[in-house]
């Protein structure tokens, strides 16, 4: 199983800080509200263990915003929120009460855009800073069980083996929200990414 060194973890957290900072600035500009960020926490696990790892932290149905990326690194990126957090997020951002996500298309769209902003920031920062060329698909939101999200991965994509899980917490208008960014990569892509991270870290010092 691929493990990150302490130094690689530190460098990735710094990159994700930069990415989340950009995402927060975009959201803040759109909504007029300040987004207070917390330090992202990252871990890596094989995709077979992904739902076991995430289940204690995300209960019930999951709102999942999914974007496929390709180029020098290839894989899938997800923003995962439990259903209630997704509805709260919509209310906080638009000042309009959310109905259950299953019947509120406008809420689903807002959550999709938030996921798009976050995932674009993460993958875009990796691309720009690490000089790794990446292109993206149109984001797509689903509401399903965590097992359903992971299950579709295993079936759909040959060669995807590892998941980089980012625990992202932030405060918006006095409410705390926690979501997860999950980046699923093949072994070859993760090696390329880790090499690019090492190169970036050594260029900083």
């Amino acid at each position, binding site marked *: 199983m691929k493990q990150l060194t302490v130094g690689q973890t530190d*460098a990735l957290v*710094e990159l994700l800080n*930069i990415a*989340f*900072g950009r995402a*927060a600035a975009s959201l803040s500009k759109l909504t007029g509200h300040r987004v207070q960020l*917390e*330090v992202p926490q990252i871990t890596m696990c094989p995709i077979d263990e992904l739902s076991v790892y995430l289940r204690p932290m995300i209960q019930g149905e999951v709102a999942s915003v999914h974007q496929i990326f390709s180029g020098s690194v290839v894989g899938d990126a997800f923003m995962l929120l439990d259903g209630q957090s997704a509805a709260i997020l919509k209310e906080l951002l638009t000042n309009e009460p959310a109905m259950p996500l299953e019947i509120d298309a406008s809420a689903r769209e807002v959550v999709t855009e938030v996921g798009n902003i976050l995932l674009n920031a993460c993958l875009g920062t990796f691309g720009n800073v690490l000089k790794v060329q990446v292109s993206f698909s149109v984001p797509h939101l689903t509401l399903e069980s965590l097992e359903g999200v992971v299950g579709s991965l295993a079936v759909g994509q040959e060669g995807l083996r590892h998941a980089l899980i980012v625990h992202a917490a932030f405060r918006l208008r006095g409410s705390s929200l926690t979501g997860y960014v999950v980046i699923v990569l093949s072994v070859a892509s993760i090696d390329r990414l880790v090499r690019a991270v090492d190169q970036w870290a050594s260029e900083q010092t």
Partner: protein
Amino acid sequence: MKGPEMTVKVLVVDDSALARRTLREILEGAGYEVAEASDGLNALERYFIEKPTIVMLDLVMKGMYGLDVLTKLRELDPDVKVIVVSADIQTSSHELVYDAGGISFVNKPFDRHEILTAVDAALARGVA
């Protein structure tokens, strides 16, 4: 970029070892002395032990948030010169930093020229 005429000490406060290492390299390369703290509480201790001329402070840290560290430092020493260095680039965050008494804000990722310009500007403040 002029180096300092006498040794100036900068306290770097960041929970990222990479960030502290990077800033150390930039600052020592320009002739400044560097002390480090890896979190807010540590920063408050180190400030009074090291007596730095300038503090370079990250905002988003585990434990004590950077703004709280800034506020506390200013309570304890109203003359403290704090440059905030952060990936949090929101305009509202900049405003909060200035309201709390920070003297400048530098965005991450680090740009060597920007860092050293900010330090020079901080040193020039209050010089007769």
